[in-house]
């Protein structure tokens, strides 16, 4: 890629009146004017201002845009916390089978038995993988799963006549945890991490009480570390009458090695777009199924997919204690098909291999980078690890500069400035789908940039140099928001 010399046109700027990109059949019933069928004042005064382009214009426009975008298929994408693993092509083909892509959600039950059976099997597989008693496939994303789980926790306490208003969240948690707690009507209590990056047990002990509804724990944490005191954590929260919520965003690291259900957790959500290889789609769609222990089963959102004694499948809407509906219909079915295909492709041994190679790859990179970057928590990590760029501040180089310099080498940078409890954080997650050569080549670039930051800091501070566009003025974007194109008269 080289710098653009002219702005890439908007689709609106390609529009020419009279051009046409569509092809529709002729109306085959007797034609009637719209104003004969509808009140005149209901009709649109002016056609919506949409572009008029030919099919060729359209395809060239979007092909050009795609070339200005980096995906996992374009190259290494070690964006920590996001698990940017390879998206298998067979899963894409599976979701596009007409028997899946072209079924209407309101069809009679007998005409969708294959779809219901797939959902039922997937519920069963995810329950086995997490060690839970039941799974709802409905939430559309991880954050939606968190909210769904917290609404069930709320219903559980209310049903028992208990008024519990607080959700405890460690300081390393994703921002969605406190935001989801607020949406479910809870207040958040933040507790600090100790010097090893783990939940501080004393802080936890003093935070729990008769008002504790739940602890939300991401494990492995956003520092990529397994909570070694998980047994004590579970005991402290349960003893106070609170429930344990497992944020399974990082489940990739423990597949086949440990299960939240066995650790004493009551609710867990999974991000299928992370652990189960469904595409991130440029920001979505995802899927965030939620698993629960038997004590929370009555509160699962409706409908659940159930099996009758005669072997047929149905949608169970008759659940009087359910928290209700959290999404239209039955979840992001197309994503669920892809996750099903992934689990069937990997099998139990393959899923365990996923965790092993994801963790091995991360530790291999960490060891190679440790001499060159500050490592705030230097111990065996899980699937990801956090570095700090604070040692380069003396040279005027920030973590943001390092990320921008990485762009020049054709890689997507790691996650930066997260988690919040590490100064100048760089969070790296290689995933299992990268080879040793890829890891080595990326580490070599990181080492080179560490050297540049000290010897020729300007090349880092002025990066990127090779992208289509230079750093963008985000302050101006927020101060004077231009959020849509307005055609010049």
């Amino acid at each position, binding site marked *: 890629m080289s710098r653009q010399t002219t702005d890439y046109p908007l*689709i*609106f700027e390609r529009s020419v009146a009279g051009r046409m*990109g569509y092809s529709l059949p002729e109306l085959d*019933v*007797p034609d*009637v004017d719209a104003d004969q*069928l*509808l009140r005149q004042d209901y*009709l*649109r005064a002016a*056609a919506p201002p*949409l572009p*008029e382009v030919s099919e060729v214009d359209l*395809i060239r426009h*979007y092909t050009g845009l795609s070339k*200005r*975008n980096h*995906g996992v298929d374009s190259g290494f994408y070690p964006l920590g916390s*996001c698990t940017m693993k*390879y998206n298998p092509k067979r899963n*894409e083909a*599976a979701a596009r089978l007409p*028997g899946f892509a*072209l*079924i*209407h959600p309101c*069809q*009679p039950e007998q005409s*969708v038995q*294959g*779809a219901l059976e797939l959902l039922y099997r997937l519920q069963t597989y995810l329950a086995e993988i997490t060690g839970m008693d039941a799974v709802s496939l409905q939430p559309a994303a991880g954050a*939606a799963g968190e909210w769904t789980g917290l609404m069930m926790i709320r219903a559980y306490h209310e049903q028992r006549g208990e008024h519990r208003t607080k959700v405890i969240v460690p300081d390393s948690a994703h*921002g969605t945890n*406190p*935001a989801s*707690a*607020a*949406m*479910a*009507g809870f207040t958040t209590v933040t507790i600090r991490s100790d010097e090893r990056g783990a939940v501080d047990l004393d802080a936890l002990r003093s935070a729990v009480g008769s008002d504790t509804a739940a602890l939300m724990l991401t494990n492995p944490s956003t520092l990529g570390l397994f909570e070694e005191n998980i047994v004590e954590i579970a005991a402290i929260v349960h003893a106070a009458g609170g429930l344990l919520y497992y944020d399974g965003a990082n489940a990739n690291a423990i597949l*086949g090695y440990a299960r939240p259900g066995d650790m004493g957790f009551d609710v867990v959500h999974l991000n299928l777009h992370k652990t189960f290889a469904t595409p991130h789609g*440029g*920001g*979505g*769609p995802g899927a965030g199924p939620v698993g629960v222990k038997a004590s929370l089963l009555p509160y699962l959102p409706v409908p659940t997919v159930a099996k009758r004694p005669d072997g047929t499948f149905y949608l169970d809407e008759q659940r009087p204690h359910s*928290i209700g509906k959290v999404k239209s219909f039955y979840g992001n079915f197309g994503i669920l098909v892809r996750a099903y295909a992934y689990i*069937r*492709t990997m099998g139990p041994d393959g899923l365990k*291999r996923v965790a092993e*190679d994801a963790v091995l790859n991360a530790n291999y990179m960490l060891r190679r980078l440790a001499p060159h970057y500050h490592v705030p928590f230097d111990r065996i990590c899980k699937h990801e690890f956090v570095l700090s760029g604070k040692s380069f501040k003396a040279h005027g180089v920030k973590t943001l500069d390092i990320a921008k310099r990485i762009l020049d080498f054709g890689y997507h940078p790691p996650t930066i400035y997260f988690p919040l409890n590490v100064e100048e954080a760089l969070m790296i997650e290689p995933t299992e789908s*990268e080879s040793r050569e890829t890891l080595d080549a990326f580490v070599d670039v990181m080492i080179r940039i560490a050297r540049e930051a000290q010897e020729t800091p300007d090349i880092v501070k002025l990066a*990127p140099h090779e992208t289509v566009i*230079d750093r*963008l003025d*985000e302050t101006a974007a*927020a101060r004077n*928001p*231009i959020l*849509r*194109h307005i055609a010049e008269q």
Partner: protein
Amino acid sequence: MKPFSYIPNTEQDRAQMLSSLKLSGVAELFADIPASFRLDQPMNLPPAASEWELMKELKELAGRNVHVEDAVSFLGAGAYHHFIPSVVDAVIGRSEFYSAYTPYQPEISQGILQAIFEYQTLIANLLGMEVSNASVYDGATALGEAALMACSHTRRNRVLVARTVNPDHRAVLATYAAGQSIAVTEIAMTALQLSLPDLERELSDDTAAVIIQYPNFFGTIEDVREIASRAHARGALLIVSAYPIALGLLEAPGSLGADIAVAEGQSLGNSLSFGGPYLGVMATTSALLRRLPGRIAGQTKDRDGRRGFVLTLQAREQHIRREKASSNICSNQALNALAASVYLSCMGPNGLREVARQNLVKAHYAAARFTAAGAELAVAGSYFNEFVLRLGPARDRIVSALAAEGVYFGLPLGRHYPELGEHVLVAVTEVMAKGAIDHTAERLEALL
């Protein structure tokens, strides 16, 4: 150990990497997991399937579903079978888009950022609103988010929702409201339309918003202007959930007084896919911009003045504001929104109007045929491409008999509307051939 095609490391790679870590085996990497619950047996899952076996299994499962192109489907009720041009899948099938994540690094994400900016423009133009976000999960959650927006903006905590709004969407709204202790009051209907006297009676100084659907769940077109003026007179906002295809012909919600316009965006180039993934369209006025949840892309310049796009106004969002954020949402339905953009750009103003016109005219043709066959149109009001038919006490027998012949004759009402126990909700889109309508009318006449 059996190799896996998505895991490149060989046994030799693993051995060398472990040795560089001074470890003797992978098990040592998991030593931090307390032994008491380390899984010591394989998970109880079916063994790995090869690609051939997998596709065979999936084709068998898919083959046990009847898809809409192998049936005659009059099903709508929030998900619609519309024609999707091939260009849509050609674009969303490009892995530079689908294998990317949220564009956190704008310099190598200009493709998706510009696509979102264009989507926001297309949606704002279609709905007649000033600003759009990058989409939320679906039409139902968009409605829930809109209600939360209205409550935080007006500092009131009661919303009025028409009973003519999709019952599934109302159910999701109820779950959103329960989390926030927001009171939801349903407004009764008369002749399958919101009852204005009931609205007037329920409107009060604590009403944050009035929520309606346009056309409503039954396909009937509400008097949006009148409802807007009554809501506004009491300081309440108007939230309109619109059917995007209808807006090829119908006046835009923004021109009728909507403060927040939402939509189930599936009908814009997204396949039915048994209910998801779809996209929640959300647009509003400049005054409400900072209450809008979700991602928003904005235009800006780089250091040399080149035009570019970034995610903006992030101070509203959960990763900055945490528990004080406008919503917990951290994703958008970017790929579905891309499909919607390609669809709208492909159709253009004339194509969208033509699609809307065909839906309208075909639906009215079908309604005339079905009433001639002996069914009764529930109301005579203005409807777009969906209408309610009364089939009488034999409804379930007729619907089942037609389904057995591969005709899905609409959605039987009654579960959510006990007074409509003899009725079906029938949708007709541009893909419904005249021959199929005529044939269904003949069969209906024989069965009635």
